[in-house]
């Protein structure tokens, strides 16, 4: 019940926070896969401590844009990114940028829960360990515990941290992945349809979690579910055929969008 009250007050808080600072900014972002262009001059700000939802029909480029934000597209052979994406004013595609550092600052949660086939503890501890965030075992234990708490998983797994992460249920696995992302203290967390493989109860838990995470992190979430976008986000960006149709406060997008295409998509007339 408490949670319900909180969720209803959230959007109002979002409105009173007059224009939070811009954390990331995409300027004229274009993406080509080989000869096929997937994104056309996308200009999209990502605001600090805000949940930005990217919506649009399949193949509209929303996931492609998301994956540009932490350069996961680098792993795709023939993918070329044009334009400029900044993080705190700095171009992340600049050759001087270290992609390892970037991905530590901009974490990611994937569509399908993908815990490492290791213990729950090792899953969360892996990131802090490779980045050297803990000086000793006690500090590492602390990071694991707080990360799992932030992901709302601590109470469920505290007695079996040494069991395999892959043995958890789907929803728990996804929250474990969120804990793993949170453990390296990123500034931005990208979520690529994080609930598409989960049942409604697990989805509700993850959404609840996103609300809490917003206080500490900037979140960008790709979703196919209009309701989810409306529930979790403060800003919404609508993509269609590789173009950004419009970007605005979630309330406005869902009640009174500027573009008819947005209206049609939200009403379920296409997509």
């Amino acid at each position, binding site marked *: 019940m408490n949670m319900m009250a909180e969720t209803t007050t959230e959007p109002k808080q979002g409105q009173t926070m007059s224009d939070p600072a811009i954390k990331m900014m995409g300027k004229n972002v274009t993406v080509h896969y080989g000869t096929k262009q997937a994104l056309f001059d996308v200009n999209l700000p990502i605001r600090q401590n805000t949940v930005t939802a990217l919506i649009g029909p399949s193949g509209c480029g929303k996931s492609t844009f998301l994956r540009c934000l932490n350069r996961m597209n680098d*792993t795709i052979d023939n993918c070329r990114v044009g334009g400029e994406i900044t993080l705190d004013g700095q171009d992340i595609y600049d050759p001087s940028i270290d992609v390892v*550092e970037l991905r530590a600052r901009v974490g990611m949660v994937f569509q399908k829960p993908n815990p490492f086939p290791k213990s729950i503890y090792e899953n969360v501890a*892996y990131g802090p360990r*490779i980045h050297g965030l803990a000086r000793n075992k006690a500090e590492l234990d602390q990071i694991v515990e707080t990360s799992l708490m932030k992901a709302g998983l601590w109470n469920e797994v505290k007695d079996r941290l040494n069991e395999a992460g892959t043995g958890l249920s789907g929803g728990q696995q996804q929250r474990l992945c969120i804990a793993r992302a949170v453990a390296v203290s990123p500034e931005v967390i990208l979520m690529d349809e994080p609930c598409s493989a989960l049942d409604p109860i697990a989805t509700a838990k993850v959404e609840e979690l996103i609300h809490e995470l917003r206080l500490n992190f900037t979140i960008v979430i790709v979703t196919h579910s209009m309701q989810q976008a409306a529930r979790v986000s403060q800003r919404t960006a609508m993509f269609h055929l590789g173009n950004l149709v419009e970007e605005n406060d979630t309330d406005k997008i869902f009640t009174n969008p500027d573009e008819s295409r947005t209206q049609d998509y939200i009403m379920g007339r296409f997509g």
Partner: protein
Amino acid sequence: MSAAISQVQTVDWHSPAIEARRKSRYAAEARLKAYGLIAIVFALGFLAILIGSLIYSGHKAFVQTVASVEIDLSAAGVDKAKIADANWKGIVKQALLDLGDAKSLPKREQKKYLDIFTDSAAYLVRDAVIADPSRLEGKSTFVIPLSDPFDQLAKGEVSRQTPEAQRRVSDKDIAAFDALVAKGVIAKPFNWGLLFNADSRFPELAGLAGAISGSFWSIVVCFAISFPVGIAAAIYLEEFAPKNRWTDLIEININNLAAVPSVVFGLLGLAVFLGWFGLPRSAPLVGGLVLALMTLPTLIIVTRVSLKAVPGSIREAALGIGASKHEAIFHHILPLAMPTVMTGTIISLARALGETAPLLLIGMNAFMTSAAHGIFDASTALPTQIYIWSDSPERGFVARTSAAILVLLAFLVLMNGIAIFLRQRFERRW
């Protein structure tokens, strides 16, 4: 048009035509099953024939006819400081003559009688005493293998019904042998010499120690080279190399190399390792290098396939929290691919273990009467030993060839067993 779409076709699922069709579909399935079953029975049958014939012809080599002779060395006057220099031939000869009460025979017949025992009896006794000098103190019993013709006689390979002129043992010899049997000094214990003796011209003494040690060192060298090189090459090609014409060319060549006949690798080893580098002939080092070249392509292919089989989501998960490519590979992808890689490695090593042609070309069919103690000692290998023995005229080598094949097969089965165990034990499912 719309009328045609809205029209619902009614099907009579029990019409004769449809029933016949269904029946023929089931029949096709039954035939396919039968073909598969026949193929398996066929394969198993041939395997059974192979193993059965090997056991039939080889099982007698696993026992060796021996005579136990008691020698009182305290009376022989052997100098403890110079055991090797004592007159062992004389001592052993006397003891053997005593055993068969043959001392009174004329010289020529004594010689014929002594032919019952292996030629090397004196050396066997000498070596046994050197190994345990306390035997000089009093009477002790020595086990002397019988020479090949009498070993065969004892095992029933030589028929007593054959006319005397057509067999290697005369009636007199047989009588002397039977006398020994009657005395109860002849026995047929398990032939440990087959595993622990080195090669010999005498079948009764010939064993596989040299071949096993040679094969062991070759496989060690082969593993030490092909495993790291194969994995490194596979990781580079799979994870780092750009996909362009050059890497395509490399890939095609690796696949082609996997299909090159092994004898070609032997020629290469002969020309390069022996000819250019001047490495020692017949050495397991060279054998291992040649086998490594032969194993590498298979290993690279297996490793690439198993790296490819690791789900991309694991790679993304690692990269997504800021792991470098190297960390993603060594912390996550390679460990997950490792069970398959290990299986592939063991199976290709097993194939290398059975490889004969390249080893013949680099001289690993030398006649070596001692086991190899390192990778530089000249030696044979199991398959080449089989080749050598199969070519030897003595009757005893016929059974030993089959026995050696069985030993080789046992090693192969063992290695494949380990591979299966590793796969089942460590395989992960997603």
